[in-house]
């Protein structure tokens, strides 16, 4: 018998010392893991390796892949002006998400996380866009953006201002990406707001009370108490936002198909066009592999450089 720090007797768990029992435990864990592991291997790991394999072929997607071309697909991808444009657009969406969408979500979370009247109501309506399917969101915003002021709500409002003409938001190469970014923000800020709200609830009220007694003002409270204390939530939301921005597909495909003339092209629409419209599945697979590598590199770097502290604490 051991004694703990309060002097009570503690029974040491026998299974930690019994090799037979330990083996049985491992077996049980394996058996419980097996179904999930099998699904993971079949539907995630196997297709990734399949994509890597097909990316080395010139293959239309029908019948067996026979025309082996080595790394030619990758050479073409990395020198294709349109792919580079798609990567650039993806990075723009990442940057704008970080400097507009997340701060907006944080500001709203701080506002309705406090004792605002009707906060449940605001929480619900802010979260609502996130529940809508991406296809419905895309079609809805296409109608809102309609260049004809008789049909599109946004232009109907705009043209009420004297001297302002209707703007074809989705039909103009210089406005289309921003127009899509507005929809992305509208759709996803509620999700990040909810993450921040959960983080805010974990801040012990005693700390805030103590700070108030010490005489901090609102600004000091937010910068020195609230934000540092939800730091790990913020780091998680940045991580999810960057990965989500790099992989955005459905909204863009529904609203513009990456157009006009590639102005809103992102990596996933580029991949889709080659795989399923042009029937160049080998090339499409290579694009998928490049996308995977970009996301993976970011993930590993971010985990190593930024989020490591979250796990150590």
């Amino acid at each position, binding site marked *: 018998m051991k004694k703990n720090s309060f002097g009570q007797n503690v029974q040491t768990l026998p299974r930690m010392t019994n090799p037979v029992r330990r083996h049985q435990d491992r077996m049980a864990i394996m058996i419980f893991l097996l179904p999930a592991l099998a699904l993971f291997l079949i539907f995630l790991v196997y297709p990734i390796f399949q994509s890597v394999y097909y990316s080395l072929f010139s293959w239309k997607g029908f*019948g067996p892949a026979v025309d082996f071309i080595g790394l030619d697909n990758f050479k073409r991808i990395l020198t294709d002006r349109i792919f580079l444009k798609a990567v650039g657009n993806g990075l723009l969406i990442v940057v704008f998400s970080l400097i507009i969408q997340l701060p907006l979500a944080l500001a709203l979370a701080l506002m309705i996380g406090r004792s605002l009247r009707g906060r449940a109501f605001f929480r619900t309506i802010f979260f609502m866009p996130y529940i809508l399917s991406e296809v419905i969101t895309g079609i809805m915003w296409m109608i809102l953006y309609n260049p004809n002021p008789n049909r599109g709500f946004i232009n109907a409002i705009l043209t009420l201002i004297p001297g302002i003409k209707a703007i074809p938001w989705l039909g103009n190469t210089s406005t289309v990406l921003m127009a899509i970014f507005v929809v992305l923000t509208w759709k996803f800020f509620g999700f990040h707001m909810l993450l921040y709200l959960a983080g805010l609830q974990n801040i012990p009220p005693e700390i805030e009370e103590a700070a108030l007694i010490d005489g901090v003002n609102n600004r000091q409270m937010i910068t020195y108490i609230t934000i540092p204390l939800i730091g790990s939530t913020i780091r998680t939301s940045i991580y999810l936002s960057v990965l989500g921005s790099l992989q955005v597909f459905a909204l863009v495909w529904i609203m513009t198909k990456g157009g006009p003339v590639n102005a809103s092209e992102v990596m996933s629409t580029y991949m889709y066009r080659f795989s399923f419209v042009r029937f160049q599945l080998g090339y499409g697979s290579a694009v998928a592999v490049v996308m995977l590598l970009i996301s993976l590199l970011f993930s590993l770097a971010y985990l190593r450089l930024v989020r490591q502290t979250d796990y150590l604490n």
Partner: protein
Amino acid sequence: MKKFTLVLFMTGILLVSGVFTTLAAEAPVTITWWHIEIVENQIALWQGLADEYMAAHPNVTIEITGYENENFKTKLTTVMQSGAPPDLFQSWGGGVMNEYAKAGLLLDITAYLDKDGWRDTFAPGALGVYSFEGKNYGVPRDMGMVGFWYNKELFAKAGIDNPPATWTELLADVQKLKDANITPIALGEGDKWPGAFWWEYLATRIAGQAGFNAAYSRKGSFTDAPFIQAGEKLQELVALEPFQSGFLGATWGVDEPTLMGNGEAAMDLMGQWAPGAFNDSSIDQKGLGNKLGWFPFPMVEGGAGGPADALGGGNGFTVGKNAPPEAVDFLKYISSVDSQVAQAKIGLSLPVVVGAESGVTDPMLKLVQQGTAAAKYFQLYYDQAMPPAVGSVVNDSVQGLFAGTLTPKQATQAIEDSAAQEIK
């Protein structure tokens, strides 16, 4: 003992009669059929034909699925890549069908067509779209040419008495419409293929049959002068800003027919399915009625192509590799004259079966039908005539011409690069 013999006898009779009935009734067969009709009376027509066939052949079950056009393409690509095509399915023939045929995903129905003169019931040009390297993989139900649908009232308002016969006249008329504050042309260039019609028609008029065949057979090139000129002519038009605001992001599915159906734009370069869509998209569901007119694509001065040359295409059904013989028999059943007349009456098809022409009652569709029949050279839409990759590059590059991001030379170079890689 007597009783036992009787029982044996009765059992024997039961067994024997059982065997005979099984032999008489054929084994049950299921046919899967995918079409792209989403308008109610068109769905009902197909269902009715299937019901009739099933009633006459009790062993056959026909499972019908109707998809929306774009969804159909996505879904079909997926099942094709998994190697499990439906038994009967919508096809536009040409390049995409050829890819499926090359991959062995389609059933060769040449022998069926040769039997009992089935082949001779079709207009030969339309049937040819569904053949590849001398073998037939499907049959057409509809064929028509692209042309200009226009609003007679708006033309009159702008002081245009006769539809344009030459490209120069067309440009002048566009300017007249603009001066009268009318949107001259409705275009859903977000979908890309509606705008591609413009460039393809210009190329057909300027290069002619010989020009296209030279480029397609790789003896010539898509960077040859006529194709560049087609781009230059197109940019003359684009420079007049004849399209509705935001046309680069607009679609055929919504914007283009809405503008035409409600009289907000004067003309639209589109295929035989346009009037149906105009009616469907107009506020009163009636469309333009007798205000709607049709004229063929104008002549281009100095072009090698004739004024009767046509760009177009149509719809048909191809047969999947695992289809039972009953599927082909059913295909023959729905390709009858009666069926084609019924299809024509509700505006589903412009008939391709000899003797079904009478089904077309609409005077405008009659014009399209006569133009199609009279075409000396019928050019299938480029995105169907050529491999899918080249067709897609054509559509993408022409969008660049409309947006002014590509020069005519750059656009043809992109098409030529893709053709050089894909057409061997």
